[in-house]
């Protein structure tokens, strides 16, 4: 299935959801259709999941270039810039369509967010916010060591070394997440995603550290 050119249908995986009447002309509109076939009016976004919205089967493996292609093709049809001369109602619907599409794109584009979203669909919440500690002692050890190395890095070169190490680890973690999703092993998935989450956070800290070094004259 492609979403290039003037295709106006998103994924066909939404199943046999009942058609709803078009808000404009009341003709029946299939749940996956973005536009009414009769009057061409844009339809509200509905509650499709992020994968379906972009025409993918749910899964961790995803071709980034393919994601971009589908996203651009859909935004070409739905972005508010296409509706500037249309009615206020159509402009509002276009805005909510484009917003839903942006949310789906942002979630799928980022491997960590994609993984967390997939887990959530499987009923696994992975949000070690306040009060939830990391139980994996190896990960804890690694976290402490990296933090220490970062806090000791006094110049950009030293920070770059920590960053290179973190980046290499992050790549490995990504592969581990992909493998875990492929084997459908929930425990392994959970553990590997947690590690990826931690390494992504480390990335932010490295960035902040670099920014701090930049502002010192």
């Amino acid at each position, binding site marked *: 299935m492609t979403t290039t050119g003037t295709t106006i249908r998103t994924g066909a995986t939404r199943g046999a959801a009942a058609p709803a009447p078009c808000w404009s002309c009341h003709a029946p509109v299939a749940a996956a259709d973005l536009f009414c076939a009769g009057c061409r009016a844009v339809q509200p976004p509905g509650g499709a999941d992020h994968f379906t919205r972009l025409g993918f089967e749910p899964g961790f493996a995803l071709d980034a270039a393919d994601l*971009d292609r589908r996203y*651009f093709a859909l*935004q*070409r049809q739905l*972005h*508010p*810039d*296409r509706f*500037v*001369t249309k009615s206020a109602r159509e402009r509002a619907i276009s*805005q*909510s369509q*484009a*917003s*839903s599409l*942006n*949310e789906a*794109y*942002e979630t799928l584009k980022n491997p960590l967010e994609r993984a967390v979203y997939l887990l959530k669909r499987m009923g696994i919440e992975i949000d070690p916010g306040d009060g939830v500690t990391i139980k994996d002692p190896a990960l804890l050890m690694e976290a402490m060591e990296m933090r220490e190395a970062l806090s000791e890095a006094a110049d950009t070169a030293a920070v770059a070394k920590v960053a290179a190490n973190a980046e290499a680890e992050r790549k490995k973690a990504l592969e581990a997440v992909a493998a875990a999703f492929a084997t459908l092993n929930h425990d392994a998935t959970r553990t590997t995603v947690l590690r990826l989450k931690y390494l992504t956070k480390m990335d932010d800290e490295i*960035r902040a550290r*670099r*920014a701090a070094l*930049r*502002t010192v004259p």
Partner: protein
Amino acid sequence: MTLLQLHEPGETPLPHEGEQTAAIGIDLGTTNTVVAIADQGKPEVIRGEKGGALIPSVVAYAPGGRVEVGETARRRLLDAPETVVSSIKRLMGRGARDLKELSGSLPYDLAPDDGGMVRLTVSGKRLSPVEISADILRAAKARAEASLGRAVERAVITVPAYFDDAARTATRDAARLAGLDVLRLVNEPTAAALAYGLDKGVEGLYAVYDLGGGTFDISLLRLEKGVFQVLATGGDAALGGDDFDHAIAERFLEQRRAAGKLAAPASADAKMILMTARLAKECLTEKSDGTWSVELGGAVSRHALDVAALEKLIQPFVARTIAISAGVFDDAAVDPKSIQGVVLVGGSTRVPAVRRAVEQFFGMKPLSNINPDEVVALGAALQAEALTRGSDNLLLDVTPLSLGIETMGGIVEKVIERNTPIPVAKAQEFTTYQDGQAAMAIHVVQGERETVDQCRSLARFELRGIPPMVAGAARVRVTFTVDADGLLTVAAREGSTGVEQRVEVKPSYGLAEDEMARMLRESIEHGRADMERRLLIEARVEAKRSLLALDAALKKDRLLLDAAEYAAIEAEIGRVNAAMSGEDRDAINGAVQALERAVTPFAQRRMDKAFAEALSGRSLDSVAERMEAGAKKKAS
């Protein structure tokens, strides 16, 4: 119109010029404003009578109420600086605390502060930056209308990518006051990329380095087959060429003080010194040194400045732009030296030290083959055409700053992170912290810092009517919506009861609704002059159309007139032309009506002739066909 126009089959009728209102692009800059229009994907700057592209963003308010904009206003700086306002963009959506002083003086006279948006006192009037910007936009609109010969009501207006919600709202309000329907607020770097992208058909990663008079923006874009996707953006809404001028002016003042001449300048003096400083800066982009004289309170001082000294003065500002750029590229995890190209935008990129710094940071020669003063307006014009006439291009922009809510202890909880593609809608749940808490104060802030006092306060509102519950039991869902113009709306809803409150964020530094209403009323009074002007333009357009139609008819059928009749029509044409060069709309309309009366017999004869030709001269088949077609039409 009694003049009948007969067209050959297949011949296109004259276009109705007056029917379609044009959509223009406006780059509302700190120092200069530029207007452009695009036709079939080809943008063009609309020039003034003297051929210049730039309208200085300077407004003079004469004591009698007369408002002048542009070059004439800038000349007033010499004889009546107290009536002149410049660089007003720096005050858009800002409070008095945000302003920068020059040796203890501001180049503005501030009206008493009421805590909201800054007000200036000019020639006895109390004016907001929104009203002053509206005067600049009116001038831009008038230039476009005079040049195009038709009414202009719709525009794409550009704003710095780093403009916050308050400044964007202020810009949109100014356009409304000027009688312009804003099709879209487009970020300046994105507009510049559009002008470059369409021009060159480029693909890949590009940076836009935009250093204007008062604002700095750096954006990283991905260009691909008509898609302009902004990946990351950053900047400083109060960093630009004006800061260079300030630094030079401070140096001049310091030298005067050292020479024992007049210490603290009055605000009119501050304007004069800043103007001299600007001249010095501009001069030193080409020459290596010079001497400038400053006269204040009758005391003249002379100041020498060379390029090396200038570069030392502006170095901190240039360094800051590079540090911000480094942050943006770090955010996006892109090596600045790996991109395809960097585009220079904004007049301040003419300063050689700026170019050198950019070249060094990116490791490549920046692109500047489109005039950096005009490129943003050209892009805006392209987008205005794309929005009104359709286009295959797609602009995908992002929020420049994170948006969040104040939580316990003055900590900011981010709801929308910076560099999120827009439009976007995101919700977050909050809860009460006291038993039986019936209301919740919602404080919306914008910025990257963790604590509220370091972010910009956008709005405060209260969600009331929360039913009594223990602390932490209520579920308040706060939804942030940012539209394609980058404007924010916030709604809050309590889950168990469905109590809902929706507010369009009224920036703390924005205009209150009743103020906006008063200004709109006043602008209708101004608007009367605008309306007169528009009617005059329409009268001219209509007259021109009549003359063109008559000219075409005369070319074909002049022989239907005898010499006396022809002379009479010529005389009427002369009168219409004379009226058109005047300013009297009624005279133009009167002359056109007289012309129409004079040509009525001619028009009648042309009708008769056309019928005669149709029946005799042309092929009989075609006549038969037409009659048949007519019969069919009647039957159906």
